[in-house]
């Protein structure tokens, strides 16, 4: 049977092109409509002091990272060491949002892995998550001193994201 070599090559090129386009449609690159918008209002209790309620205006005033995490989330453990390193450098305030989690599990998790957060808010029923348009955990938001969302990262943080996408945004105005 005669097989024209051009046909398989053409099919293969088409497939590769299709896969290439498919890769650019990264499901994780989801632009948040919140970027440039003020952080939504909230009232949440603190993980370590469940009786204390924190509101939006208690937090804003400097650059900060809002890191949405949960103890049941595998990818959160992946990024956790990076967040701990970042916290040690003390260059930016880091606030944790414990998302749809049991507080006892969350406390144990922080005890085991280390607690890099300046404070951790409990979003047990995902209310703030809903307002922030959280698709899954982990997600990280960069908030400016006026309380505006500057950047959102979906999925575990990496060194490059922290360096190139988060910290650089805080520098021009500093």
């Amino acid at each position: 049977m005669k097989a024209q070599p051009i046909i398989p090559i053409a099919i293969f090129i088409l497939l590769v092109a299709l896969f290439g386009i498919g890769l650019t449609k990264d499901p994780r690159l989801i632009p948040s409509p919140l970027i440039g918008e003020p952080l939504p209002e909230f009232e949440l209790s603190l993980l370590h002091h469940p009786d204390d309620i924190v509101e939006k205006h208690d937090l804003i005033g400097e650059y900060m990272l809002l890191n949405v995490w949960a103890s049941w989330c595998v990818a959160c453990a992946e990024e956790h060491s990076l967040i701990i390193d970042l916290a040690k450098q003390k260059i930016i305030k880091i606030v944790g949002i414990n998302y749809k989690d049991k507080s006892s599990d969350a406390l144990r998790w922080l005890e085991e892995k280390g607690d890099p957060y300046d404070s951790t808010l409990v979003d047990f029923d995902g209310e703030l998550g809903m307002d922030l348009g959280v698709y899954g955990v982990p997600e990280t938001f960069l908030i400016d001193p006026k309380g505006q969302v500057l950047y959102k990262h979906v999925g575990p943080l990496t060194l490059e994201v922290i360096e190139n996408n988060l910290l650089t945004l805080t520098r021009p105005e500093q």
Partner: protein
Amino acid sequence: MIVELGHFSTVLALICSAMLSIIPLIGAQTNNAHLMDIAKSAARAQFLLVFLGFLALTWAFVTNDFSLTYVASNSNSSLPLGFRISAVWGAHEGSLLLWVLILSIWMAAFTCSNNDMPPKFKARVLAILGIISFGFLIFMLFTSNPFLRNLPSPANGLDLNPLLQDLGLIIHPPLLYAGYVGFSVPFALAIAALLGDGVNPAWARWARPWVLVAWSFLTIGISLGSWWAYYELGWGGWWFWDPVENASFMPWLLGTALVHSLAATEKRNIFKSWTILLAIATFGLSLIGTFLVRSGILTSVHAFATDPTRGVFILAFLTIVIGGALAVFAAKKPQSDPLASDSLAARETFLLTNSIVLSVATGTVLLGTLYPLLIDALGRGKMSVGAPYFNSVFIPLMIPLLMLIGFGQTAHWRRDSFRRLFSIAKYPAACAITLAIGAWAMLEGTGAIQAASALLMAFWVIVTTLKNLYLQFSNATKISPVRRALLGQSVAHIGFAVTVIGVTLVSIYSVEKHVRMSPGESIEFSNYQATFDSIKKITGPNYSGVEATFNVTQDEKVIAVLFPQKRNYNAGSQTMTEAGISAGITKDIYIALGEKIDTEDWGVRLNIKPFVRWIWFGAFLMAAGGMIAASDLRFKRLNKNRRPSAQT
């Protein structure tokens, strides 16, 4: 420390594979025997080094070394030892190490094959396998390294995904990879043939056992995956036409075509460029499968955690390997085939049709799998291609295939007549029709006609295969006994028919009922009475949950007691359904718990799955047939008088 040694040994393996990719090729080009000899030792060294790396990672899992990020994310100290070991390949990084290990095993096995391949050819084959290992080792070490530490180490791990805590999943990936990866050997053989002396019957004889063994592993791997999905996903489905399943099914379909086309190349020195193309495309589809599963461009219940940079890497690798192979193919395409057959009824025609049908089937599966991606790439919205598409395209293609098996097995090479074929087929056909009518009389319901016609085709294959075996055995003599290749072929064809019977009956006659029940209640379903007897709390090593007791009775007699469970895994707070299954030859009774609805009531799923085991038993027969055929002594024979270029 052991982990660092393993890491180091894997890096050494990378260096080994780099040497293996280059030096023997130079040796083959310059006729330098010393350089070619390096191939053998480099391949074996690479195998040992990767094996040490794999052992080191296993050691980290066994000793609960949670300072490794990979161990911490996929294991837990409360996980039983068996699952800690299988967790080595429970996620992306470790399964990639397993991929490389299996590739190295295939390579080492190839260095041990002692037949009459010229050293140049052997060196080229190993070098091509070396290139493939190099790509995957780089990929693993730079984007998905399982040996990375994360200090300070967490006190405990996050646990293996509960779906994967299962016997089926311990053995499914190694066997599936053995098949997937095994097709790299025919691929390397094909490219080495193009680079060297070309394709001839001797080449086909070398290639056949490798293709058969890889194909058998893939068959077993796929059917284990199906079996696993059946009892573990909790709703009794055994095939979903899910992208990940399709990713392994497409190489299987093309691999099947390759097995058949290779037979024609060996016996008649024909279909040469087609065989080479199939060898390239089969391995290409294995790589595409790896790409689809690990890049996250398609969604699936089985998909690994996704990372686009990994996707870019595999895509680049795929382009280089398959693009390069196709370029070599275009430049060195074998000459047009000589006169193939003297009559239309000859076996060549049947094998040709087999190739066409299987390739078209592969194409339809590929199209259905990639169509959502295409639509998305064109910005035309999100859509999915459901199982009905695959069923309505695939089933009509299988009917001619079954029909052809019956004739093709008995047809002579080169010259035969339809009259002879029909006269041999007369009694088997009558027999199959009688059996099918008998079955039709026993079947009921609207699907009876479809079921009976599918059964007719399956019976036809079984009866003609048996008749052919009978003829062969009665003609066999001491000097020319029945060859194992023929025996294996017959077993595999019967296995295919058995699978068809299973698929037909379970698809048409499954009964499913969703009900709301509380303990003490009974319900009629099909011809049975199921009683929800009681429910109790249970605690496992790393989960807690409930277990229900169901008594299934027929005519007042208890025929099965089932214990479906609902488990809640401690570490990830994931809920899992463990179905209660009473397995039988003619039917499975399958009960799964849904969720608790209020204080007393539970959602309960009741299924009757007639002949579902036949699907996997048939697949087992197919794989066994492949292995029997591969063991045919002809393939091992040291053959001094048959030079590679000689015509037979």
